[in-house]
């Protein structure tokens, strides 16, 4: 109960600061408009005006909420203007990219832990791959894949998996190496094979590390999917909405797409947190 109250207080404070910022950032335009019409503008009218402009510098919270409402609840899901439609486009490539990236990350981690050659060679390349700015290579990936006929969801999913696999590799390697010597010695005295050591000891101990990496990975996948929608002037998805909004100066559209993306990310991480809780309970480690 106490945490709900404190969350509400913090959110309320943030919204209040947001309103103040909206008023101050949008006031230049309102004052200029009044000057050109030759009118003097009073404080109350100033505030009301800054909070209801059509193309404000910083949309007020209620403007964003009403735009969100208009484009989700009041539009058919199949309409090209529905935010739910666009969110689903982005979400589907996020999820596919997440699955690809996670599987690749786990396989690489298993290889690194069990094979000395992979242990010494894979990590530097994995780290180097992450130092290239994603905005630079995303267009290249999309153009190359389009030219061989792979279009639509898959190129974006590949960009998502590119950002997602690295935290999974790092987390899983740490997790698979986390058992104490006493636990691995015990299995050695039973003459267990490497596969038995993996399934019975290393994999269960790495679960907490895996879930931590998955949470980072899924947010990275969402970012990858949005970035994948920016370069080629795509027409569908949250990234496309962001781009369209910035072309036409529709700041409210930009902000509503941003808030929607944030909500999708929060929901995905929340689902993973729930799965982690269930998994730990089943493993008896509440």
């Amino acid at each position, binding site marked *: 109960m106490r945490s709900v109250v404190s969350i509400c207080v913090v959110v309320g404070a943030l919204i209040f600061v947001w309103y103040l910022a909206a008023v101050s950032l949008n006031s230049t335009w309102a004052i200029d408009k009044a000057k050109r019409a030759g009118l003097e503008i009073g404080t109350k009218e100033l505030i009301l005006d800054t909070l209801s402009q059509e193309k404000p510098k910083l949309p007020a919270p209620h403007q964003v909420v009403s735009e969100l409402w208009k484009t989700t609840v009041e539009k058919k899901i199949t309409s090209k203007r529905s935010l739910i439609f666009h969110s689903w486009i982005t979400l589907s490539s996020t999820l596919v990219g997440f699955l690809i990236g996670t599987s690749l990350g786990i396989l690489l981690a298993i290889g690194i832990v069990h094979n000395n050659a992979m242990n010494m060679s894979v990590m530097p390349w994995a780290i180097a791959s992450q130092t290239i700015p994603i905005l630079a290579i995303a267009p290249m990936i999309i153009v190359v894949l389009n030219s061989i006929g792979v279009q639509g969801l898959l190129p974006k999913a590949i960009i998502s998996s590119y950002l997602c696999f690295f935290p999974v590799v790092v987390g899983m390697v740490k997790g698979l190496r986390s058992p104490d010597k*006493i*636990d691995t*010695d*015990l*299995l*050695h*005295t*039973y*003459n*267990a094979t490497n596969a*038995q050591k993996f399934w*019975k*000891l290393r994999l*269960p101990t790495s679960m907490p590390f895996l879930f931590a990496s998955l949470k980072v990975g899924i947010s990275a996948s969402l970012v990858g999917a949005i970035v994948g929608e920016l370069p080629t002037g795509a027409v569908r998805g949250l990234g496309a909405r962001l781009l369209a909004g910035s072309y036409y100066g529709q700041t409210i559209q930009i902000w509503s797409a941003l808030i929607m993306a944030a909500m999708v990310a929060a929901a995905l991480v929340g689902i993973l947190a729930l799965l982690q809780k269930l998994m730990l309970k089943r*493993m*008896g*480690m509440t």
Partner: protein
Amino acid sequence: MRPKIFAKSVDLTFSTNDGPVDALKDVNLDINEGDFVSFIGPSGCGKTTFLRVLADLERPTGGTVEINGVSPRIARESRAYGYVFQAPGLYPWRSIGKNIKLPLEIIGLSKHEQSERVKRVLNLVDLQDFENKFPWQLSGGMQQRASIARALAFDADILLMDEPFGALDEIVRDHLNEQLLDLWKTTSKTICFVTHSIPEAVYLSTKIVVMSPRPGRIIDVIESTLPNERPLDIRDSSEFISISQRVREGLRSGHSYE
């Protein structure tokens, strides 16, 4: 009669950053079937290292070791012994019953056989009501008993125990010592037991091996004259005290008190 465990001129030198360390030097020992052998000595005298050599968890740099007439590696691969560590080492995501099933799963016994053996060894260590509880729900002494049950589950002839009761208090320790002796009499296994405690070594063993450090070597091997029936108050008898004195002299001559 051929000894069950046989060590001749065993050397083990660790190469470390600041030079070689002689963990074991020229260790010779015969252990017969059914013996209860304690290894006692100060920290760093090589007793745990020697136990690990028997278990094939370390390889000696010189000498021969035979267990059941074969090398330690073949003994380990044929699962000739059960090992009990200082810490219980139970997996927290498995219940006590499933923890005991761990070696049985690796060996590949049938599910029916696994359940039967779990019930049998839990009875032996008096933990029959705790099969479905998790390790964090048990006290330290109970967890260690579960660890001993796990080592007994696959019916190996030999039990190697590395200071299993070291982390427990005196009262629990006395209780577990009695239980261990009963277990030994019922199952007639060959037990190698590493300890820091002189009374524990003298109370439990038929043979006491006194070791000393730098380099790790055997100072004395004492054949115990105590009878096989040992109530706890045998620790106040004069025979017990004289054996303890002999152990202490062995430790002193090996510079353990300096």
